[in-house]
């Protein structure tokens, strides 16, 4: 039973489901499976499913926590095109460098620096339901967030009544976004 839940946890992690929501689902599942087991109902009987990865992906997808369930076959089919695109890009960059050296223009033009996204803009989630707000905050790429006073779970229907940092602030990804919940 716990092996099934652990496998679900791994799958949610792989799919990028926010930790807080993944833990919420795992806790719910674990408690239900334990009760079912006490009633003599097996995991497969209870869930109608024996594949934890497929089950976890379906649940997260239906909750809107991942965009689309990732299909292995599709991913495999995409790989050759990724390789071709990469090779073409390399060829283009090499030929571009040769042209630049040949014409003596290399280094004169504007330099384009590609930097990884280290800062994100804090979205405005005030007035939204808790679950939706968490999804949006997670979607911006911040590494961490917490819900004041609800560290062990919260009601999805509660409304975000406050947030720090304030909406619109540009923050480093590792800065924790704190949400305060209340009744509408």
């Amino acid at each position, binding site marked *: 039973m716990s092996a099934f839940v652990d496998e679900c946890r791994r799958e949610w992690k792989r799919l990028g489901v926010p930790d807080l929501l993944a833990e*919420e*689902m795992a*806790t*719910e*599942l674990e*408690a*239900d*499976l*334990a*009760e*079912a087991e006490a*009633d003599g109902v097996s995991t497969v*009987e*209870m*869930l*109608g*499913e024996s594949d934890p990865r497929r*089950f976890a992906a*379906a*649940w*997260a*997808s*239906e*909750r*809107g926590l991942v965009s689309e369930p990732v299909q292995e076959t599709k991913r495999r089919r995409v790989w050759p095109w990724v390789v071709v695109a990469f090779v073409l890009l390399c060829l283009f960059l090499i030929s571009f460098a040769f042209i630049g050296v040949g014409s003596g223009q290399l280094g004169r033009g504007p330099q384009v620096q590609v930097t990884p996204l280290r800062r994100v803009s804090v979205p405005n989630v005030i007035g939204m339901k808790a*679950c939706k707000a968490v999804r949006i905050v997670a979607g911006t790429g911040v590494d961490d967030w917490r819900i004041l006073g609800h560290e*062990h*779970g*919260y*009601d*999805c*229907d509660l409304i975000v009544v406050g947030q720090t940092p304030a909406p619109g602030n540009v923050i480093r990804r590792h800065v924790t976004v704190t949400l305060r919940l209340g009744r509408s």
Partner: protein
Amino acid sequence: MRRMAIESRRSQMLRGVLDLCLLAVVVDEPAYGYEMTRRLRERGLSTVGEGSIYPLLGRLEREGLVATHREASDGGPPRKYYSASPSGRRALHEGVRAWRDVRGEVDSVLATIEAEVAG
């Protein structure tokens, strides 16, 4: 093989109305996931076919048709309870009406076949 085909058909037929069944068992009193399967069983729906109620509950939650809250449990972690939201109640009543219409129409068509088979 034939049994599998029958199960598969049953599963497909259920798929269209399982959301109504879930709403029906939490319309009067909230329940957590396993409690819902227990209520379904008590009302005669012992297996829900392929898949599980959890993805469906996830969709109902996302669409705002069920409200959720947590309640402390005896000794364990707090349980997540589901109940039909006002829009869930509306969806349930509309869905039940549609189901009864479809069931009536299909029954009218199949009734003759049944008579022929029986005869």
